């Protein structure tokens, strides 16, 4: 059966950073989804022109409420409109859920590593929230690369995630005062400890821009070589 376009009403908007927003929509008839999946969002102009982009779901299914996380890209056709212009109470259209591969299911019990670059944290946040609400006692790790401390999304939830969530922030441009790690892009050293805690079958989720995902994929494959961990355990999602 073809997936239908469903009307989705904006009911909440919250700033995550200066340019990123959490958006909550109600979507009557939403069939539910798995953590890590995404939706297509369709906008229609007065002259009938339509534009569609994909956005990851930031939280597990909660009846007909869906949360997205949108980074406004300057000069972008869709993201600045969603982030700042779509009036509360108004509607767009959505279709989904999409993507059956980049998912974490609450029945999974192996320790997990997830690696986010910037807005790539969105689908990983859905997994982290599902992991928490399932009361899972397996370790969920997030290595989260941001430019500076002011670019962290979901900070409170990530810093206060309990004993089964382990979050490491990597600052590429500006580190907080007294940080042990110098500012800079992700390296093998940043991944050595988190990967050492994985099982051979543990899934690894990597999400962000193409450049970030390619870099991290290469680092992980190298770290796994000689440890008997297959590159096929690495699942990637590219945002552009």
């Amino acid at each position, binding site marked *: *059966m*073809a*997936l239908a376009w469903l*009307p989705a009403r904006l009911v909440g908007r919250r700033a995550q950073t200066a340019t990123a927003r959490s958006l909550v929509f109600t979507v009557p008839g939403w069939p539910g989804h798995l953590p890590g999946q995404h939706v*297509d969002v*369709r*906008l*229609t*102009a*007065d002259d*009938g*022109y*339509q*534009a*569609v*982009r*994909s956005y990851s779901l930031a939280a597990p299914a909660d009846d007909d409420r869906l949360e997205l996380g949108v980074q406004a890209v300057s000069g972008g*056709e869709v993201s600045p*409109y969603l982030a700042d*212009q*779509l*009036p509360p109470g*108004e*509607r*767009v*259209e959505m279709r989904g859920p*999409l*993507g*059956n*591969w*980049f998912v974490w299911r609450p029945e999974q019990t192996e320790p997990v590593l997830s690696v986010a670059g910037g807005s790539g944290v969105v689908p990983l946040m859905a997994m982290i929230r599902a992991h928490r609400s399932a009361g899972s006692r397996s370790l969920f790790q997030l290595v989260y690369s941001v430019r500076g401390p002011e670019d962290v999304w979901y900070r409170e939830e990530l810093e206060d995630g309990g004993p089964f969530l382990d979050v490491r922030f990597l600052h590429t441009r500006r580190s907080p005062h007294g940080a042990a790690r110098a500012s800079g892009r992700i390296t093998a050293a940043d991944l050595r400890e988190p990967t050492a805690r994985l099982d051979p079958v543990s899934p690894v989720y990597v999400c962000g821009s*193409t450049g970030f*995902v*390619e870099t991290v*994929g*290469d680092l*992980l*494959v190298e770290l796994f070589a000689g440890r008997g961990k297959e*590159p*096929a355990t*690495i*699942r*990637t999602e*590219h945002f*552009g």
Partner: protein
Amino acid sequence: MTSFSPGFRGRPHSLAQRLPPGQYPTESFPVLSAGPTPRVPAEAWSFTVTTERGETRSWTWEQMMALPQQDTVTDIHCVTRWSKFDTRWRGVSLDVFFDGLETTAGYVVADSYGGYTTSLPLADLLGGRAWIAHTYDGYALSPEHGGPARLLVPHLYFWKSAKWVRGLRLTPEDDPGFWESAGYHPYGDPWREQRHRGD
């Protein structure tokens, strides 16, 4: 006045006729893949066609490069909704690899280094519509875009153009590949917007 997305205008949409439904044009070359990028040196690359009876034909990199080469300029369409116009490729037409091969199989599974697979009808690989491509825009195809060589089937969504291709297996029935098993459409015609199963 539509009841959706009030105040949305969009970019000037002059290229609309050249775009399949639901696509937008991009100047960059985004990447879709499910896992890390395999690194395959050209010297270690080989390409094998296997018939439904198990007979094989193989080519090393050198042998493939010695086959007749073709330049192609084409639009490509990714299921993640970007389209890129006038991409320039060099490679070998699949008609060359299949020349004289006896088969009654109707379908093909493409196998890639790294384990990726995709499935499509044999007819879509023949008749000058598909290539093994090794050069993009005048340069050796980079690993993240499928180098050293990828399948190029531009009339279908780009996930059918398997990156890091290492072989084609002929099968009597359609045997769904990676994305086809994960809910994507078995055929994937961008002009009929066949993104997901049931579209």
